[in-house]
């Protein structure tokens, strides 16, 4: 088990390095010159050159990448108009259009993204798994049919449509949230009601599509597991249906769901761009779409892209280790 973890860890670190390096290369190749973009109206070639140096784009891609990695662990100093600004570790860069360290900007955005992702995750897992188990147990009956309608609706409604409809025709139509306060941050521990007001509808919107997929997946897994030999054995030795479901069927049926749930959650931690945009939440997703469409703020774009891929890779590692713990057969491969 220990060597398995070490191996997976090494693989993840290598992948992280390759992915981040690739991202640096891609952004180096694009025909947008950030040095020119942050330049004011009276732009001269020497100013552009100075900007290039400030942005750290005057060196090779490999060196830009290496400076970034070093900055992550040791902090980094950026020069602006004669003043040196030091961003403490983990330094993700410096945004010259916002005059702030990217780490600070990201740290402000992350609570929104985390709240949205966690809330949606809890909602879709509880709804998806319980509906899935229910419809598997009542296969062909009314509950199963109702659940299959839910699955169909959930998978056919694109999130941005549900989001628009929920915001306009529920939240604003019935004045559930003051439009000026839409997307305001409330600390969930000190103001739980305010937090709920901000996050309930976006979480529900985001959870809908996932809940539908998880219902379908749970249902088919439970049905498949129920016909396995070990369930027949459990029944033959006289266990009650409740115990069989809880201790045998669910354990086997839900194991593959752990993997998918982990990865879906990690994907959301990078920012749910559509939901955040529609509900006015200033999370990582909204941060990156603004950085792209408004100023093309390269340090922010690179940072959010890297964060999103790091979450996926790290969660992949965690899920792999968790799965090896649940299912020992995996360790040997």
């Amino acid at each position, binding site marked *: 088990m220990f060597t398995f973890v070490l191996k997976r860890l090494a693989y993840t670190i290598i992948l992280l390095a390759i992915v981040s390096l690739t991202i640096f290369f891609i952004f180096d190749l694009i025909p947008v010159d950030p040095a020119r973009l942050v330049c004011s109206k009276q732009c001269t070639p020497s100013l552009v050159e100075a900007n290039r140096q400030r942005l750290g784009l005057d060196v090779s891609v490999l060196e830009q990448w290496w400076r970034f990695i070093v900055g992550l662990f040791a902090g980094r100093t950026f020069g602006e108009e004669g003043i040196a600004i030091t961003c403490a570790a983990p330094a993700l860069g410096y945004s010259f259009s916002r005059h702030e360290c990217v780490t600070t900007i990201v740290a402000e955005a992350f609570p929104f993204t985390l709240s949205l992702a966690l809330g949606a995750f809890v909602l879709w897992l509880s709804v998806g798994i319980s509906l899935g188990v229910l419809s598997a147990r009542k296969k062909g009956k009314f509950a199963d049919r109702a659940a299959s309608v839910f699955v169909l609706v959930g998978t056919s409604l694109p999130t941005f449509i549900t989001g628009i409809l929920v915001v306009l025709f529920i939240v604003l139509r019935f004045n559930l949230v003051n439009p000026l306060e839409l997307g305001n941050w409330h600390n969930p521990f000190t103001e739980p009601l305010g937090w709920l007001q901000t996050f309930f509808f976006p979480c529900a919107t985001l959870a809908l599509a996932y809940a539908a997929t998880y219902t379908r997946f749970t249902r088919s897994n439970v049905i498949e597991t129920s016909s396995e030999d070990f369930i027949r054995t459990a029944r033959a030795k006289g266990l009650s249906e409740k115990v069989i479901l809880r201790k045998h069927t669910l354990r086997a049926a839900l194991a593959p769901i752990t993997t998918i749930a982990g990865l879906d959650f990690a994907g959301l931690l990078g920012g749910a761009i559509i939901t955040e945009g529609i509900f006015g939440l200033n999370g990582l997703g909204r941060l990156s779409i603004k950085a792209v469409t408004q100023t093309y703020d390269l340090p922010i774009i690179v940072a959010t892209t890297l964060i999103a*891929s790091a979450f996926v890779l790290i969660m992949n590692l965690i899920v792999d280790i968790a799965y090896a713990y649940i299912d020992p057969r995996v360790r040997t491969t």
Partner: protein
Amino acid sequence: MSEVILRTPQQIAWGRFRRNKTGIVSAIVVLFFLFLAYGAPLITRLFGLSSTETYLDGLDPQGMPIGAGGGISWQHPFGLEPGAGRDVFSMLLYGSRISFSVAIITSVAAIGIGMILGITAGYFRGRVDAVIGRFSDLLFAFPSFFMIIALSIPMVERVESLGIVRDNGARLTVLIIFFVFFGWPGFARLVRSQAMSLRERDFIMAAQSQGASNWRIITKEMLPNLWPTAIVFLSLSLPGYLAAEAVFSFLGVGINPPASTFGLVLSDAIKYWRADPAYLMIPCAMLIAIVLALNLLGDAVRDALDTKAE
């Protein structure tokens, strides 16, 4: 003794599909929308409409359409666009043509590439398999949604500088390239695992022992067994790409005006939601109907081709 009727797998699948009422209905609905989309020039002409003409006499001085439901009338069945005064029906027909084209081209291309690389990896194994596998691992680790958003604007400039396509032609090309680039690994993995198990089957070994070339084995023995997977994957991925195009256009990094895809119409309609809710609801309803029909069709196709169901 009763006569034995021999049926090919295609006939069995078709027979199963024909008995599925939901499948037939959704297929008809999909065909209807496809007809509307690709017959857009013909249909709008029949109605005496145009997607570019502005019907300003249907708007009040504030630029809002006159009449109930956003100006719904016999002449304009879906009403008029607030502000510019274009006919919403023709806008959506032309818009859905773009959406369908993106979905179809992307799915077919992603499946084509996935098929070639998946078979190569699964049949030849070894180093080729490792290279393809690692590369698709890498693509999976990429935040594709972020990358498309971050790179689409500069990529469009680059494509335009090549001088072959411009404006929305370039945006469409970039969108499709991105979707295909991040879309093929999923299908390649599926094909790889199937190719690996097919390779060990007796009929492949029989072909090999008769000295058949790899090319012959792949095209004549393996491909016929992989088509059902491709068709199921195609029908299940169409609604996803159709909605994806809408999302990126909605976010402003896909197709741009004056084209009128679902995403664009919706991002415009949000501004008028209180004054003209019909302008928002009609494209919503149409997009949902298309995605729903495609999803149901996909399920029916899967049920018909899935050999495990028997």
